[in-house]
């Protein structure tokens, strides 16, 4: 990817692609920020019901710059969803989903969905009263799906009751599963954009 980015930096950008590129790079920068601050937060965060409040308190109170790391993680998550949403809405209105090739559109829609999942699960990780009841409402909604709902809800809770397993499942999805999916899609998106630029710019790769 570093190679692809270097190529982007050195090649002239056609004016009509500039805004797309700016949005894409902004999303990439914010996501990198999320990864960096997220890794830092895992150093102190403890995903067990007894320790969650303690560890979050510890980050905010004792760890130097803890407020900054947690705060920027929180705010750039929301900014990511907003920026990605605006990017998609713009692409929808201008019809760039045809010009850039449809693959980037599919990738962007899935990325937005995954970002929503990431932010939602991140807010669940606070494991306070609001998060608990929010998640239980979602799980109850899932449970009402006919046929597969019950087993799906069991998988989400990690058992029949909300508890420690639910929290560690959410933690695992938030820090492992979903971020890796987003990474793969970002790689795909960058590759598609670079290829598109090369076709438009022509010349040597």
């Amino acid at each position, binding site marked *: 990817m570093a190679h692809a980015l270097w190529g982007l*930096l*050195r*090649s*002239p*950008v*056609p*004016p009509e692609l*500039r805004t797309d590129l*700016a949005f894409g*790079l*902004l999303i990439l*920068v*914010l996501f990198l*920020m999320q990864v960096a601050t997220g890794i830092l937060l895992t150093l102190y965060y403890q995903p067990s*019901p007894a320790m969650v*409040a303690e560890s*979050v*308190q510890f980050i*905010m109170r004792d760890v130097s710059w803890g*407020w*900054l790391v*947690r*705060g*920027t993680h*929180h*705010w*750039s998550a*929301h*900014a990511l*969803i907003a920026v990605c*949403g605006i990017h998609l*809405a713009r692409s*929808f*209105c*201008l*019809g760039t*989903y*045809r010009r850039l090739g*449809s693959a980037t*559109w*599919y990738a962007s*829609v899935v990325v937005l969905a995954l970002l*929503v999942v990431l*932010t*939602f699960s991140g*807010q669940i990780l*606070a494991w*306070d*009263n*609001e*998060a*608990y*009841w*929010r998640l*239980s*409402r979602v799980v109850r909604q899932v449970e*009402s799906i006919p046929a597969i709902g019950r087993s799906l809800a069991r998988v989400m809770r990690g058992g029949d009751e909300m508890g420690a397993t639910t929290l560690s499942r959410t933690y695992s999805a938030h820090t492992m599963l979903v971020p890796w999916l987003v990474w793969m899609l970002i790689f795909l998106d960058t590759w598609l954009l670079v290829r598109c630029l090369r076709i438009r*710019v*022509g*010349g040597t790769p």
Partner: protein
Amino acid sequence: MIVVLRQGSTEEEIAEVLRDLERRSLRGRIVHAGGKPLIHVTSGSTRRARRLLRLDQVEALVPTSGPRVRVEGRRFYPYYFVNLCAGFVLVLGLLVLLAGQLPSGMGVEIDAQHPPSETQFPWYARAPLAFVALFPESLAWLGWLVLLVLAGVVFFLPTLDRSQRRTLRERWWIVAAGILAGIGWLYLTLSEGAR
């Protein structure tokens, strides 16, 4: 890349530049334009040629990448990325400001016995929930189904919209649909149904 030499450079000076190029395993060919001798560097990595500027008779090195791009597309290219990076730094500064001014709280301890009277959902999830709440309780499944179909339409948009119309005016209906959807989303987000 093109090496621009000073007007009236002597044969000896031109030969010196060519020798220098050869030392860096680059090949050059002399052409003339506007009274100035030019050397078109025809092969080899041109990054190594930067030191040519030390020679007195060399006025400039003109990069010539991107042969099929019009001049307008290129005029800003280094400046464009500087602007972009400056913008990113501003965005990060804004995030730091938000983190300092509006810190996220910790919330109260879990009370699993007593469900709260209303559960607040985050701003991005309110509109779909309010949309489902528009349907009567017994038809909630229909609301979810409609939502799913709408999401599918958005996802498969490139397959559904194969029209060749390019300009905004020719696509007014899709822009209108987008604006309507945006207004609807905003209304649902602010409405009471999202509780």
